[in-house]
């Protein structure tokens, strides 16, 4: 449908026959939105153990790099070779375990964070009962006496599974907007 220069920036599923859209306002859409707001609250309130409960056992959680590439090379502006995160349930759990120990100094004192979630778009995923959820986020992060909020924006491209009474996160790819991150670490989850 489009001969635009940068198809690669589009989520992969758009290249195929369009999957069924979950309408905004539908009950399913609303339930998923609720799960996202709850996830944001959980992370912002430092309830990390609770957060891991929302991760599927087979979760894959990645954050590719962004490169500044010329317009004609835009398909290479997202680079999935060496990523900022490349995690599974085990490594995410280990990260949380560390945060709950006594010596996770990168986050002690903890950052004060806020994850504003917007632009949620949902389609059916290939797997039955699973949904592809794309959303935008703005993360604000405040540490110590710094009067400037550190910011990070981007898109999450997730697959969530409907477990009936709740959802679980089957995969997340975080597309950041910066080639050089403005924060000294990703000691927080996105």
């Amino acid at each position, binding site marked *: 449908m489009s001969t635009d220069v940068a198809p690669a920036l589009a989520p992969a599923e758009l290249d195929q026959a369009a999957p069924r859209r979950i309408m905004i306002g539908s009950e399913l859409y609303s339930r998923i939105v609720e799960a996202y707001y709850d996830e944001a609250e959980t992370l912002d309130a430092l309830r990390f153990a609770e957060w891991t409960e929302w991760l599927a056992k087979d979760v894959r959680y990645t*954050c590719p*790099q962004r*490169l*500044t*590439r*010329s317009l004609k*090379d835009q398909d*290479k502006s997202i*680079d999935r*070779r*060496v*990523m*900022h*995160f*490349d*995690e599974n349930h085990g*490594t995410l759990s*280990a*990260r949380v*375990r*560390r945060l709950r*120990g*006594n*010596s*996770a*100094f*990168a*986050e002690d004192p903890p950052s004060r964070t806020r994850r504003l979630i917007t632009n949620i778009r949902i389609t059916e995923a290939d797997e039955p009962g699973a949904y592809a959820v794309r959303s935008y986020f703005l993360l604000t992060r405040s*540490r110590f006496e710094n009067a400037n909020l550190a910011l990070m924006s981007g898109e999450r491209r997730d697959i969530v599974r409907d477990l009936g009474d709740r959802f679980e996160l089957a995969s997340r790819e975080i597309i950041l907007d910066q*080639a*050089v*991150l*403005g*924060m*000294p*670490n*990703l*000691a927080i989850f996105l």
Partner: protein
Amino acid sequence: MLTRTTPTLSDGTPIEDLVRPATREVELRVLSDREIYELEMERVFGKTWLLLGHASEIPNAGDFVMRDMGNDSVIVARDRDGSIHVSLNVCPHRGMRVCLADAGNTPVHKCIYHGWAFKPNGEFVGSPVAEEKMHGEILPKSELGLRKARVHIYAGLIFATWNIEGPSFDEFLGDMKWYYDMIFNRTKGGWEVLGPPQRFIVNANWKAAGEQSAADGFHTLTLHRWLDEMFGNGGSELTSTMYGVEVGSEHGHALRCQSLSKKFARAKDFDNGSMSIEERWNILPAPGCTPEMLDEVRANLTPEQMEQLMTNPPQVGGMFPNVLLACIYAPQPDGRILGSMALHTYIPRGPDKLEFVNWVFCESGTSQEDRDVMLKNTIFMLGTSGLVEQDDSDTWPHMTLSARGTQGRKATMKYQAINANPPPKNWRGPGLVYDGFTKDDTQWNWWMYWRELMLSAD
């Protein structure tokens, strides 16, 4: 009149007093002072060899990456003949940045402002509307190319310097090459980069990271204590890893070697002379290597280096001024021990800002499966989200803030823990060798070389 060549800062402080040999102290102001920073850009980053990347990042003719030498942007490009060139990314016409992308491929770098064009080797090709000679006739075309840095490829690693007539790269490494070769130069294919480097900004002076790289073992015990909490068995495992051999150099390079027999149960007999190289290698190959690689490693290293590698291999350390290297054992749940291989550079971005650049590597002979495991391991521990290094990058900014305070900048950093032991018996390698608990000597050497450079005339 004060000029940059006098060895005195504008407030009257002799530069030599910033680093005080009598008490092994360094004035904290070096972490925040803009005048010192500007001098460093000339005298340190304008003079030494700087790591810019790896040849495997630009495998084809025309490939390029945009990198930084100190506070200058450079183009690292491969020419048609396969040679690698480093050119100042500043158009000789009006100073526009010629290359604007992090990476790409082009036979000609064309400045978007007025169209002056340059080859991958920096040579001036011409300007638009050739008959109008818009580049004038005052200077010959040969003087209108991009300014070229001197390049040295060491085991695939791309180094460059502005010091065209200065010491060779080998002179720069000096004695330490014996050890670095064990890491970078051991296999036939050599290292291979796994992707573009992670990059992020830390609000800290580059030297807060630089001095740590050379080689502050001690901080692991406290700052990275979580390692003990999570992986220890309730005792103080970390403390035992504080023992080893540090190797340093008058040029500020440093490496930490650790005794395999003390570190790994399976290696407890590695240094009692009872086992052959083959036996030991098969039990525990060098980090990042596989048993199959033994032959090529043997072909590249001397017997003394092989023995060192099987007893006290260097694992972490730095290269002056702004390189950290890690080539460490990464035990797997299945009992295998793979490696985690990474290089960082700390790019100065002002007196209170650095860019952390993190490349992850493997041996070119590593299987895809092992590559995946090694990469994930490394991301888990080092760089942006690395559980070890996220602590470091939240620490350096505080040091820099301290150094900004009017009283704080008068404080000193102290390197008074002195190793007085002789080298271990039968130590095979050259260099300054410090045996035992990790002390401050190699870091002190780092500062002494910094001082030497800062005192040199331009």
